[in-house]
């Protein structure tokens, strides 16, 4: 199966800009399905971005984050060809991770 994570990290100067999209329903627990049943909450809780053995960014997400969440941030360091590791875990214990190359 294709990864749920799409990430683009671009190094420029002495910093790296990271944009990431994760494919996830992010069900809030407040929405009903077509039968009127509440869809139980199912959302990502923690996303970690790791570069050179150091966590450079941590997202703590509640159910109010949009479906297929997007996030953008910038960290100092990182150069072309370096590995950037992205991993997430959700409230049902599902998880995924990906190692991307900085461009």
């Amino acid at each position, binding site marked *: *199966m294709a990864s749920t994570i799409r990430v683009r990290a671009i190094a420029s100067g002495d*910093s790296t800009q990271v944009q990431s999209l994760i494919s996830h329903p*992010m069900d*809030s627990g*407040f929405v009903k399905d077509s039968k009127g049943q509440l869809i139980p909450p199912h959302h990502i*809780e*923690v*996303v*970690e971005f790791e570069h050179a053995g*150091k*966590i*450079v*960014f*941590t*997202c*703590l*997400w*509640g*159910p*109010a*984050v*949009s*479906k297929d*969440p*997007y*996030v*953008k*941030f*910038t*960290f*100092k*360091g990182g150069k072309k060809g370096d590995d950037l*590791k992205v*991993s*997430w*875990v959700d409230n049902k*214990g599902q*998880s*995924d*991770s990906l190692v991307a190359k900085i461009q």
Partner: protein
Amino acid sequence: MGLLPEAPDETRRIILKSAVGLAALGLGAGAALTSAHATADAKAWPQDAFKQKSEADALKALYGKSAEPSDKVNLDAPEIAENGAVVPIAIASTLPNVTGIAILVLENPNTLAAAYKIPEGTEASVASRLKMAKTSKVVAVVESGGKLYTATKEVKVTVGGCGG
């Protein structure tokens, strides 16, 4: 080449294809195994903070203190969001030593929408997309030097249909 019949060439192609497929499968399985050991830490999630119904309670649960407004917190959100399911929110700050950023949507069922940990060396700037139940004040919170600073902006959510 013309002397050879078509069939063997095709068989060869199929064999090659399945070999490539198997190799890809093997790689996929390998990746899955290694990722199982190093996923994000679910225990880091502040469950209590995400259950709070008010700004003060959420901040207390998350950071253990209260906040003061600051013009050095920059909250970029639309005046009017046509689709409450996807509201782009960006927060940046010029404050020094920023260690955390949080976003609160006051009228949502649970106030805290997202929190970000900013380690040293990462810029105090984040953009993401949130869901909003209805028109609400959005509060950006920045933790800098052990203190909390906020910026607030009202975002109008227009509900589609029925002239809403």
